């Protein structure tokens, strides 16, 4: 699997999982966070969203998830306009410590969203075990989140999302609160999991290296009121490796290109190859 471009995984090729058109959001009149953001995400694609701090990355992600009703524009998930959280979408938040429920065990946390799906106990059990195994936490099901390290807690949050078997996984700076080594491990875990399950992933991050390392495509946002500054195709071979991939000239080149886009004071509507 060393093909370059956004390679189709198990999803239907070319089908847009997510379509964003002219997205506009203001928290108050005159306080425009995002203005006129448009992009598409294909099935099986790994897309990262980067931009200067305060550019409304999290706002954008919340709008994509249906948690936030944007003031303008349309978002379509699997061809249907998003109003409220659609079915088939899961989220991983940055603050794993707050997103996991401390009164539930690891199993209980993963199970909770499944309880309200049409699944029997056996299927739920199987999904919990499978997802825990996928994130390397088999045997930790009876622990409480607060008994685990930060990195392990974020793995639980990822397992919870996996067990839910989403079509689209949204991740909001999921590795921003863990140490560097754990971060690298979690990045590889997500890459591996995506390869295995063929989920479409949209990742919001402020870390350019991370976005290049993980993605098929990186969407660069401008300062607020933010627009899409550029969409950068990464086209690095997979599977990627923390040392080998990051030493490739192409990696360095993409990283520099994106860093420059973000650093540049203004410049709208620019399309980068």
């Amino acid at each position: 699997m060393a093909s370059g471009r956004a390679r189709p995984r198990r999803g239907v090729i070319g089908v847009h999982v997510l379509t964003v058109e002219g997205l506009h959001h203001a928290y108050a009149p005159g306080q425009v966070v995002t203005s006129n953001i448009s992009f598409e995400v294909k099935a099986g694609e790994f897309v990262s969203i980067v931009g200067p701090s305060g550019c409304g990355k999290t706002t954008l992600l919340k709008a994509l998830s249906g948690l936030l009703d944007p003031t303008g524009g349309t978002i379509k998930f699997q061809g249907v306009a998003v109003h409220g959280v659609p079915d088939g979408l899961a989220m991983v938040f940055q603050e794993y410590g707050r997103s996991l429920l401390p009164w539930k065990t690891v199993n209980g946390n993963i199970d909770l969203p499944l309880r309200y799906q049409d699944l029997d106990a056996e299927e739920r059990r199987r999904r919990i075990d499978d997802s825990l195994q996928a994130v390397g936490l088999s045997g930790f099901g009876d622990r409480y989140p607060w008994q685990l390290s930060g990195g392990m807690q974020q793995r639980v949050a990822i397992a919870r999302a996996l067990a839910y078997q989403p079509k689209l996984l949204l991740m909001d700076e999921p590795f921003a609160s863990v140490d560097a080594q754990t971060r690298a491990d979690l990045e590889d875990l997500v890459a591996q999991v995506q390869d295995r399950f063929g989920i479409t992933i949209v990742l919001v991050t402020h870390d350019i290296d991370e976005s290049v390392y993980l993605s098929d495509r990186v969407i660069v946002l401008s300062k607020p009121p933010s627009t899409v500054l550029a969409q950068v195709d990464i086209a690095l071979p997979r599977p990627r490796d923390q040392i080998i991939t990051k030493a490739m000239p192409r990696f360095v080149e993409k990283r520099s290109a994106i860093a420059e886009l973000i650093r540049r004071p203004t410049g709208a509507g620019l399309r980068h190859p």
Partner: protein
Amino acid sequence: MNRKPTSWAHPIAYALGMVKSFATRFGLGIALVILWQFAATRVGSIFFPPPTEILHRAAELWLSGPPRRLFLGDGVFQDVLPSIARLLSGWVLAVLVGLPLGVLIGRSRMASDLLDPSLQFLRAVPGPALIPIFIILLGTESTMRVALIAFGSVWPILLNAIEGTRAVDPLQLETARAFRLPRHARLWRIVLPAARPKIFAGMRVSLALAIILMVVSELVASTNGIGYRIQNSQIMFLLTDMWCGIVLLALLGCALNWLFIKVENRALAWHRGARGRGAAS
């Protein structure tokens, strides 16, 4: 209650540790009782009988019954059990009213705006001041006393339920929404468990209040109960009987608190764990 001696290795060291921990925790109380005993025997005031005399009288009052009544004396059936029944009924009523109302106000802006000012006003009224009105409305039977206990002890539950449900981490609720948990599930699986530590704290405070209100309610127009017995004994100059009642109240308070902590520890084991072991209630 959660500090355990760590050295299991050596039985003698363990035993010594137990003795030391017991001495630290109860030494002062025991010393005071001995001092009281000594001083009371010495001075011989009828207002302050020695603890041995109080104990002796207490046994006569409450533990002199026939075996088929588990040796419980008439006093238990006349005064102690009715008091406990009122206390618990009043407190349970306070929980049943305060908890749902608090959750409603905590989660609904509308309910909060609608109810909060009136409740703040009512809360400012000291319960005992309403006894005359309660008597007019509910008579002088147990109903009035239960109502008074409930009215006076509902506030800590209500306020803590409001505060606890308001303070639920927005991210936990957002997570629940992101995973499409239905509304009722968000209430039962997120809001209520998250607010549970606060709610329990409120219930515990209100239990202590309920004991005070039980006594107060029995001081007015009553014919039985621990409060009535204490007041009656004082009027009739049965000072040892009066002291018995006071000691019994203290024991009752401790016992209820102890029981409550047992339940709370089970229900909130995760909470203490999450906050770091040893950081108890």
